[in-house]
């Protein structure tokens, strides 16, 4: 039996189990009196179903509500997780057709800017609301004299950031709706745009935006890792987090007293997410009915109250009570850009001009076992990052980025560094990107695997580069291997090495990629020790290299 077949059997068995479970629930619930008012739509339980939903990972916190919804409606929700903007790509390109019945992201605003994407959505139902806000560490709030934070403007936040008094973490706007919403909000506020942003507004705001982003010390492809990185960062290094109000308030539940965040919704305006549960045009009739049942349930007044209390998002059903911790004073809603050109232009400016540049080091296993298909897929995956066709700056090496490739086997074979220049000069970024690709294509497989030795060498390379340039960059290491370290330093040696590092280099995250027969425990150990994150490249090396761009 081949592996694919095996898996589909297991899936079928799971589906069957769910069906049985649902059927039992329906039976036992038929005699339970409904809690809803008689005017509410009934929640029929006769037709059990499964709704497959491509969703933003923030929605994991809805699990308890969806369990209750399953009991009440017989609809089981199965999630697949992705970032908002990547999800929009999946819908627009048709990759979601037939695979999912619905999508559920914090916002469909970006998706809707694309005509192809817009046509894929049959109906959209906002379920709850949360504005993007700035969570400021209480001590920092005091130092800045911002009292309880209820009167702070974006201009004040920008000034504090450019004066070095406010450092913050923010998710990558090319991937995450919270990051993108922040970018829209600050660009609107700094340009003084009275309404939706235009290209001219973005131009006008550029100098202030650049200053604002000098304060960004953490970047992340996901809001989960961002919160983790904030918790890890030594006190004083990161004073604030930009994220949804709901995420910040929920995070407070697990933060130490000195790390507590005061949620600042700037008075000059916010961008809010309204979490539209959206049915895909490709869904079949049975799933459409499941969708209708589920949304009707989620919008019920009592369910809305429950959602608000559980997730700290705001209810959308009028009359439903919001969680008591949510302040009720109103904020101006800053409009989202009305065209893809403005949105993508803003993202490309962020990546290539506005943000602090990155120093990115790749430690690449080119041992003998990489020979053949493995090396080819590595070359292809890294080569893709040197392409110039990338409208919103989602994957390619950015202007002003410093990229080092280290090829290793029994020892480091070579290390080559490329500085991608800014656009506008001669030669432009294209020539340097081509040169990176040439190095990538020259990788050759031979020798053993001295993993820890080579990783230590990466730290030394970074140290030399930082000393020479005296600069301040987002710095990270990617470690790709298809095997186990079998030469040179051991994991114990590396731990000692890492413990001995000064605070700066010690905080550099390592993002190991598991490939082939890589030793997961070694790689997970490295991720844990350095505050990085382990990625699995077994299924698609392309996808993983691209995903990691959000962390670099």
């Amino acid at each position, binding site marked *: 039996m081949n592996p694919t077949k095996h898996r589909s059997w297991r899936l079928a068995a799971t589906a069957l189990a769910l069906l049985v479970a649902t059927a039992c629930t329906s039976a036992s619930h038929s005699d339970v009196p409904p809690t809803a008012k008689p005017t509410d739509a009934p929640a029929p339980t006769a037709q059990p179903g499964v709704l497959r939903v491509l969703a933003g990972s923030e929605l994991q916190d809805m699990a308890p509500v969806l369990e209750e919804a399953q009991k009440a409606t017989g609809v089981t929700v199965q999630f697949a997780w992705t970032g908002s903007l990547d999800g929009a790509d999946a819908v627009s390109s048709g990759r979601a057709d037939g695979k999912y019945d619905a999508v559920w992201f914090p916002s469909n605003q970006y998706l809707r800017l694309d005509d192809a994407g817009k046509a894929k959505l049959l109906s959209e139902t906002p379920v709850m609301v949360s504005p993007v806000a700035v969570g400021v560490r209480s001590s920092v709030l005091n130092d800045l004299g911002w009292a309880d934070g209820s009167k702070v403007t974006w201009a004040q936040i920008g000034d504090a950031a450019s004066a070095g008094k406010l450092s913050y973490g923010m998710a990558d706007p090319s991937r995450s709706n919270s990051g993108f919403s922040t970018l829209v909000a600050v660009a609107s506020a700094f340009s003084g745009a*009275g309404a939706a942003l235009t290209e001219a507004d973005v131009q006008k705001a550029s100098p202030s935006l650049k200053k604002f982003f000098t304060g960004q010390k953490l970047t992340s492809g996901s809001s989960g890792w961002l919160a983790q990185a904030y918790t890890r960062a030594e006190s004083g290094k990161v004073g604030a987090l930009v994220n949804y109000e709901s995420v910040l308030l929920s995070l407070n539940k697990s933060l130490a007293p000195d790390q507590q965040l005061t949620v600042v919704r700037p008075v000059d305006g916010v961008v809010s997410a309204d979490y539209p549960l959206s049915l895909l045009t490709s869904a079949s009739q049975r799933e459409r009915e499941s969708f209708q049942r589920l949304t009707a349930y989620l919008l019920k007044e009592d369910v809305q109250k429950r959602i608000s209390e559980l997730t700290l998002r705001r209810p959308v*059903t009028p009359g439903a009570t919001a969680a008591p911790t949510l302040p009720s004073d109103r904020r101006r809603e800053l409009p989202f850009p009305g065209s893809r050109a403005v949105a993508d232009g803003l993202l490309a400016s962020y990546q290539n001009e506005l943000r602090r540049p990155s120093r990115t080091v790749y430690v690449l296993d080119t041992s003998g076992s990489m020979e053949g298909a493995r090396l080819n897929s590595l070359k292809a995956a890294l080569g893709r990052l040197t392409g110039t066709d990338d409208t919103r700056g989602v994957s390619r090496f950015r202007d002003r980025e410093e990229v080092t490739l280290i090829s290793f086997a029994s020892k480091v074979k070579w290390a080559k560094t490329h500085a991608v220049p800014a656009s506008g000069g001669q030669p432009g970024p294209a020539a340097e990107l081509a040169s990176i690709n040439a190095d990538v294509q020259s990788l050759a497989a031979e020798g053993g695997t001295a993993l820890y030795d080579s990783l230590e060498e990466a730290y030394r390379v970074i140290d030399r580069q930082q000393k020479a340039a005296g600069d301040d960059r987002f710095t990270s290491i990617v470690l790709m291997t298809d095997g186990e370290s079998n030469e040179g330093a051991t994991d114990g040696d590396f731990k000692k090495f890492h413990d001995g590092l000064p605070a700066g280099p010690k905080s550099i995250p390592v993002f190991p990629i598991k490939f082939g027969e890589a030793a997961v425990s070694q790689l997970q150990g490295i991720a844990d020790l350095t505050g990085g994150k382990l990625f699995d490249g077994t299924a698609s090396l392309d996808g993983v290299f691209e995903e990691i761009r959000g962390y670099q």
Partner: protein
Amino acid sequence: MRRALGVLAALVLLGGVTYALIPDSGPGPTKLVTVTGLIGSEKRAFFENQQVKDELAKQGLEVRADSTGSWTMSDKAKQQTDLDFAFPASAAPVKEIQHIWGLQDSPLVPFYSPLVIVTHAPVARVLQENNLATLDDSDHGVWTFKMDAYLAALKSGRKWQDLVGAAAHPELSGTIFVTTTDPQSSSSGAMYIALLSYILNNRQVVSDQAGIDATKDVLHTATALQGGQKSSSDEPFKDFGAGVGNPLVFAYESQVAQLALSGTSTGDMVVMYPDTTIYSDHTVVARSANGQKLASLLQDDEELRRLEARFGFRPQADPSAFAKAVQGKKPDFAPDLTAAKVKQPQVPAQDYLLKLVAAAKGNAQ
């Protein structure tokens, strides 16, 4: 069994004998016939209501409907082959749907609802103080939104912070504009364009290129200011209810009335009637005999008419039903649109409306 009936009904329909197999609504257990269709999102709660379902079931029908933007309904009508009816929120997409389905009869309009502007009470008072709105004390406290003054504000890019009394409300800043749905996908957004074009064209329905040329710049401004627009009327209204979004939202009167009539607190929500506004004519395009039956029931069945009014719609065949339903409810509604002096322009012909929408979206031809 159900499917067999459907097939029979289809065969009979093809033969031209349409009434033979439609279940009679006489006593005894009635076999339900499922009627499948597309509805605008604003009618979803109506069709999901148990009393509506019961009354339809009494007449032998069970309605199965997907909600979608009225304006894109013709696309979906093209994609889906199993539909009995389409029920958009305006007459505008009707011709196109009829064309796709090869129909010619004039469709029924069981009920209608004027388009209004929803805001918060303090904002309405700021508008009143600045001559952009009036409150009629003699007539149930009905608010009127002054369209000429609003268009003047749009043209000059007037800002909230320039208005007397706005300083007390920090959320009132930026350019004054009304938020609508995307006119390319949703009927209420398109009706806004129709309304503005009428006023901008010296209160004449746009029916030539000169009318488009005369109105396109302001239409583009009114749209561009909004930035990203949502695709159905449900969304901006939900956002408003959740306390986010622009303080001025273009909505169906029925959306607010439905809330008020269900006993839901609408907080400080206020309905302002533009002194000139479009009525949304909820039109049933029936493709099958069962679709036709649904349309007739919605128009003529007294119980359904009562329920329509309770869901905030104004039944065409019973002008007093709405007034009766909203009496004493908050926010205040105009019981009689004529008495409230609300003028109603015609909607431009479909091809001109499409051109106006394209111009508004910055794609003028």
